[in-house]
């Protein structure tokens, strides 16, 4: 490991822009203080790696509407609660009577729905390839158990099309390599990135989530710069083919669709929706295929695609802070803007007088 760190510190070639597209990678990079261990010629850029933060405002608005209807209960992972819609977040809406319940797993819906047949439980089904199979299993179990009072409002995304979009001709600054998402790859297999690596002639390295794993993967990207190759360095969990059972389960319940990404607009083929066959479980997801940006000044599209650094956004740290996030990148604790804000600690936050006792 020492030699890897030395390799990364002493790199003196051309400046490389490497993108991680997994929010957990982003978070672990920050938690491990990795940027400080790299040569100044290696820049890490965060891609659209958090499924929670790339949901569009309209999606949140719809969840809130649903949760305010008598008899409905929105069920969600904790981190969806603070994502802002066009006028409020689920957390704020809860204060006005919107019924919201936080769970650890979508599977918890089965028990809730089974025990309370008079309510309709609507899951805020966000996720990438990692989470979609979980929803497939939820539906499978619901069907098997005859549970009918379950709905999904989906905002499901797939990675390759958005990476393609990022690398595409429209982008001025090209990315020199991708830290391929480890847990997406568990399902899709590393082969999902092979076509992109070849198409753009840049390396993709599938990485695990320990600090060392991330460092080794970055080193691999540096070493492979300019090579259109996909390397799997998360071999304990990821294979070339991925989890075929999971892929089949997804195939059964879901089909590809266009999808809107917060701040980025609609990217063709970058999403999944429930098949018509299962539309009884759908809470109106197909109507939410547009992105209406909240704040026109938000540079999320640029930040997410590595063209703009958070501090370059005119809203950053001013109207846009972790407590008043304007775009996706400030929403998640793994968003680029959020993490930049906290590393930089602008005046705004330092001047607060803090409360002592809790």
């Amino acid at each position, binding site marked *: 490991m020492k030699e890897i760190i030395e390799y990364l510190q002493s790199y003196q070639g051309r400046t490389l822009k490497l993108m991680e597209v997994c929010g957990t990678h982003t978070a672990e990079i920050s938690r491990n203080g990795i940027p400080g261990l790299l040569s100044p010629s290696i820049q890490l850029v965060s891609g659209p790696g958090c499924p929670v933060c790339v949901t569009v405002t309209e999606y949140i608005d719809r969840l809130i509407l649903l949760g305010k209807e008598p008899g409905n209960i929105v069920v969600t992972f904790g981190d969806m609660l603070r994502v802002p819609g066009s006028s409020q977040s689920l957390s704020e809406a809860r*204060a*006005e009577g919107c019924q919201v319940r936080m769970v650890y797993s979508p599977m918890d819906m089965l028990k809730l729905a089974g025990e309370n047949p008079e309510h309709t439980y609507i899951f805020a089904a966000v996720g990438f390839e990692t989470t979609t199979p979980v929803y497939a299993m939820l539906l499978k179990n619901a069907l098997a158990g005859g549970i009918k009072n379950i709905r999904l409002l989906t905002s499901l995304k797939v990675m390759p099309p958005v990476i393609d979009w990022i690398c595409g001709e429209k982008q001025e600054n090209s990315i020199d390599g991708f830290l391929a998402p480890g847990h997406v790859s568990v399902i899709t297999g590393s082969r999902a990135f092979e076509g992109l690596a070849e198409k753009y002639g840049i390396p993709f390295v599938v990485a695990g989530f320990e600090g060392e794993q991330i460092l080794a993967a970055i080193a691999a990207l540096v070493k492979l710069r300019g090579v259109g190759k996909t390397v799997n360095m998360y071999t304990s969990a990821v294979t070339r083919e991925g989890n075929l059972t999971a892929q089949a389960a997804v195939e059964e319940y879901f089909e590809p669709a266009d999808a809107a990404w917060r701040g980025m607009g609609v990217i063709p083929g970058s999403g999944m929706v429930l098949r018509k066959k299962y539309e009884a479980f759908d809470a109106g997801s197909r109507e939410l295929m547009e992105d209406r940006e909240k704040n026109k000044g938000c540079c999320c599209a640029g930040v997410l695609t590595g063209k703009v650094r958070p501090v370059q956004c005119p809203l950053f740290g001013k109207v846009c802070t972790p407590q008043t996030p304007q775009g996706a990148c400030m929403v998640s604790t793994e968003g680029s803007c959020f993490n930049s804000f906290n590393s930089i600690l602008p005046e705004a936050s330092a001047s607060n007088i803090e*409360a*002592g*006792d809790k």
Partner: protein
Amino acid sequence: MKITMAHGSGGRATSQLITGIFEKNFNNDILSRMEDSAVVAGSSRLAVTTDSFVVNPLFFPGGDIGKLSVCGTVNDLLMSGACPKYLTCGFILEEGADSEELEKIAASMAQTAREAGVTIVAGDTKVIEGSGGIYINTAGVGFVPEGVQISASLCEEGDAVLVSGNLGDHHAAILSARMEITNSIVSDCAPLGEMVRSMQEAGVRIKAMRDVTRGGLATVLHEFAAASDCCVELTQSCLPVSDQVKGFCGLLGLDPLYMGNEGKMTAVVAGEDAELALSCMQKSKYGEAAAIIGHISGKERGKVLLTTPLGGIRVITELIGEGLPRIC
């Protein structure tokens, strides 16, 4: 701004709420230190008390929950013969509470604290699920001068019983708002420091004092009767009640004897000091309608008796049940 669970997290949202609202309004050196406890000057005899305030609506004619939360605790300190000095306040906010309202409440607390001469030295804020409610706990510390001995158990035969003004105003004001009855009844919510000091300085021998709050005068006097094992004898025609509150009580089948005030006190004083106490009360800011309403006897120990205008005797119990508006 609506309060959300994040405002109770203990993190940045909490501290911004504190800085933006509480620190600004309660501004004083001690609180600004923001330590786990406030360290303040002491005294050899302390009075300590606490009350929570859960009034609905939060704003009502004559006051708001903030003013109430200061008056209530200040008055409790005064009733024990103490000079009120320090307050703590704990806010429990339901999600959806309005921060502008919270700020108004804080400003009202600050103003009332200034009038009452107390300093808010420690605070806490928690957020719970719910629908916008605001609850406030205040605790108070006061200093008790040498020689002062005031207790519900010190009433003696021959003592006089006074009340500092009209009964039921606060209760009627709150209930009017809730039942949508239009009137000009205003809560009496007020700090009684000036009134108590005036009696103390005039040398009135005060045996027992209590502010007439939840449960009403009947409940307080019943407690005096029990604690001192004496009989409190009242004359109905001496009980001060405004005409409007009388009408209000008639409408809803309520009895002013069981209605709460938030700026009224009852005092038991040595019989010979009754007139002196009355004039002190009547001269002070919130005591215009004060009255001598009865005396302590040995007639029926542990009981409160009321002589009616017709000459009948009524036994007055403490409040039983909730004191709800009645149809029957």
